[in-house]
């Protein structure tokens, strides 16, 4: 067939994706391979950080899947009271940036938190301090179990109730059916969320730098940050690129594992019958109370700690009426560092949302609404950055920055944002479009529309609401982002995330808490509004 406008659009999209994803990743691999400093990986610091990264990633993956599956089963398949409210609250850590969560949890379980101080007064030593490796793993679990819960819940909803009812009619008890039918059918979802969470946590920066560093618990991401900030090694870029390639390889291994495991998936019929709920009977009040306690401890408690910290002048000051003031708010809001960071973040976030929205809309529709052999490849490359640690993307852009004249400019951060967050829009656009049969466009063709016209009138119009909410999600994620901006920021410049991080590092804990609280509240309100407007 002839080449037409639709083919031109496809070519342009390939060029954009090549520039955003392929070029940076190839650059980092080329630099690492050229300098060949892989021997370094077995040296003391790097080896220790690598082991810490892998152990904390695997442990937090396991914990997140267990916790997420337990919540999913309790909230989907039992007659627990207040399931809808519990589900919303349990998912809320997803909306709080991990480094904000870390600052909040220091208020709950830091060495001088009210709990630990009371315990020390009574028994001589603190109950449990969040600083150190165990704290890092705990916080990683708290911030990633909602992802596992979402994936397992979705899988659970796809399991037809008939399958459980067939087990019941064959003589299985309610719990027996759960154990012999439901749980085995959930295994692929659990494995897949384990891989996703583990790879995602492999190079988290905020949590280990805030609660790991004080106890000298170093991971690959905090090590990379140290190398880039202070010239403790020769040619830091090549060392950092080597670490990045290792993380990239681990992420690809995770993807391969997920694909191989995912191949053994069952074809399930759509279920029309409402799910039968497991009656908890006399255990219901007890199970209900316990679930509410655990969920609130994981989500509401740190927010309360954040509130109390922002009302108090310094950590360890008791929460009494005469100590409470709004001084932190006025100080934070009038600080030039904060206003500059907020302005920068806002600009970068809006631009990232805009670019991701347009490019993501185009890629999401072209790959789902046309028949072409390169669709799968185009969508895979666009989605790939989601599967690799943000740290790798930051280092990759750092490697090519001098060659494209973006070194020490905010545009470098924008590029990294777009690379990282494009997948959010592509996914939110592609998912709803897949369920609409391709004849929608063919009906337009038969009605006299060219391929490009059908793409525009039917596909893009259909996808516009999803692209809009995807773009808002990108902007809200970018405005509170830390890992990419902390590594790519030019000296003397600020973003919101970096401003909070620097306040925390400089010991201004209460100011950091105040700003964290503001960012969290504004973010939650924004997400709520975005969710409502697209519904």
């Amino acid at each position: 067939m002839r080449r037409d406008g639709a083919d031109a659009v496809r070519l342009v999209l390939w060029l954009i994706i090549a520039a955003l994803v392929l070029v940076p990743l190839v650059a980092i691999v080329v630099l690492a391979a050229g300098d060949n400093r892989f021997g370094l990986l077995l040296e003391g610091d790097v080896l220790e950080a690598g082991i810490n990264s892998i152990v904390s990633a695997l442990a937090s993956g396991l914990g997140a899947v267990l916790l997420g599956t337990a919540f999913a089963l309790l909230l989907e398949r039992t007659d627990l009271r207040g399931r809808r409210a519990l589900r919303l609250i349990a998912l809320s850590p997803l909306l709080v940036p991990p480094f904000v969560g870390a600052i909040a949890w220091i208020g709950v379980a830091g060495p001088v938190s009210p709990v630990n101080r009371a315990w020390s007064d009574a028994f001589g030593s603190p109950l449990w301090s969040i600083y150190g490796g165990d704290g890092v793993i705990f916080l990683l679990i708290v911030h990633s179990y909602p992802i596992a819960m979402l994936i397992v819940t979705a899988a659970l909803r796809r399991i037809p109730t008939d399958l459980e009812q067939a087990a019941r009619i064959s003589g299985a008890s309610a719990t027996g059916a759960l154990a012999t039918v439901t749980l085995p059918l959930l295994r692929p979802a659990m494995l897949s969320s384990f891989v996703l969470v583990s790879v995602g946590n492999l190079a988290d920066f905020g949590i280990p730098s805030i609660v790991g560093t004080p106890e000298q618990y170093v991971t690959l991401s905090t090590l990379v940050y140290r190398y880039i900030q202070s010239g403790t090694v020769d040619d830091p870029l090549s060392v950092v690129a080597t670490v990045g390639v290792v993380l990239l390889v681990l992420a690809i291994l995770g993807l391969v594992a997920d694909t191989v495991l995912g191949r053994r998936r069952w074809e399930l019929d759509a279920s029309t019958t409402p799910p039968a709920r497991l009656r908890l009977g006399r255990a219901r009040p007890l199970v209900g109370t316990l679930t509410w306690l655990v969920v609130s401890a994981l989500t509401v408690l740190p927010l309360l700690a954040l509130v109390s910290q922002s009302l108090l002048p310094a950590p360890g000051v008791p929460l009494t009426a005469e100590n409470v003031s709004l001084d932190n708010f006025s100080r934070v809001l009038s600080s030039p560092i904060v206003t500059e960071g907020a302005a920068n973040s806002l600009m970068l976030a809006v631009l990232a949302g805009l670019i991701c929205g347009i490019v993501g809309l185009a890629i999401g529709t072209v790959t789902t609404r046309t028949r072409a052999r390169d669709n799968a490849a185009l969508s895979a490359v666009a989605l790939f950055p989601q599967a690799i640690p943000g740290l790798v993307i930051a280092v990759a852009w750092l490697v090519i920055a001098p060659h494209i004249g973006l070194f020490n400019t905010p545009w470098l951060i924008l590029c990294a944002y777009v690379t990282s967050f494009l997948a959010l829009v592509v996914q939110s656009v592609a998912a709803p479009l897949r369920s609409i049969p391709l004849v929608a466009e063919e009906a337009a063709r038969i009605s006299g529309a060219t391929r490009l016209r059908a793409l525009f009138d039917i596909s893009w119009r259909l996808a516009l609401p999803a692209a809009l909410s995807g773009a808002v999600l990108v902007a809200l994620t970018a405005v509170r982002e830390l890992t990419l901006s902390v590594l790519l920021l030019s000296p003397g410049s600020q973003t919101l995330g970096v401003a909070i991080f620097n306040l925390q590092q400089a010991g201004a804990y209460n100011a950091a808490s105040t700003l964290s609280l503001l960012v969290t509240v504004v973010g939650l309100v924004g997400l709520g509004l975005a969710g409502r407007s697209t519904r």
Partner: protein
Amino acid sequence: MASVTLSSLHLQYPSGAVGLEDIDLTVGHGEFVALVGASGSGKTTLLRTVAGFLSPTSGTVRLGDRVVAGDGVFVPAESRHLGMVFQQHAVWPHMNVARNVEYPLRRARVGRAERTERVERMLELVGLGGYAKRDPATLSGGQRQRVALARALVAEPSVLLLDEALSALDEPLRDRLRLELQSLTRSLGLTVLHVTHDRDEALALADRVVVLDGGRIQQIGTPPELVSEPASAAVARFLSDATVVAGTRTATGFRADGFPVDVPAALLSGAATGDVEVAILPEDVDLVAPGPAADGVAASAGPGAESAVVVSSLYGRSGNDVILDWGGLTLRSRTADHRPVVGERVGVSIRRALVFPSAGAAVPSAAPAAGARV
């Protein structure tokens, strides 16, 4: 004047699979032609080739006098001026009913006043008067299919293509739409190509039916021709559930290989001799009182004496559907007068058998010629 002319059409998919082979078909102006066949027979491929969503490997597609595919020409779907209704209706969810229906007119740059007027007239015609501002999500499946039909017809296409257009609907509704579709297309004098896997629907609606198998046309004919004079044993089996048996034809009659089927020469129709296949239509099998012959022993007394066991017996309005085990052969019968019970022993009498040359060798070449009318 012919509306659609397909000549020596071949289509091979990039994977190497053959989609269409040697298709010659002429659809007259105002004619309603149904394409039937099992899944994978090529009926949808043929329709999509006419629509312009597939490009033939060789051969030509003509709409009226205009070559739209072949001879180095390929006119894309949007420039062929066709109407099409899809199985999953394909009503766009982000436009209201009127916007859906007027879309082809917008593409053809028809002015606003005329658009509104034609959309209203068309909605009236499909029984959706007053539905113009409705959101498709609020419509039932049948109403959405009417919207799709209105959209396909509004620009007065040269040919209406129906791709399993009624198959997604439930039974009583499908029946009603079938009736409406016929009166609508006849009163507008439309040329229609209708793809369906429902044999009865094809026979009921069409002027002529095209039977496809393996990408080839097996037979073209009017519904009565196809039912009473199938061109091959395969067509008889597909369209009428005929029982097909291989055997030998001699001067005295037909004798099956391995089964107790003997049909005297007088009851055979068809010219083939030697190694042949016969197709026995269910309507040509009568159930009579069981003969004395023991199970599995071929009786020599001719039809009427052999006894068979009833495997299943389903009630039907126009005759009971009875499946018999006749000495190992599964034979189908449709009989109105008596409904046997499962397990009952009955006698079998064959009134007529259609003789065809043995399958494989002669059938494909013999088939397309039979019944073809231009």
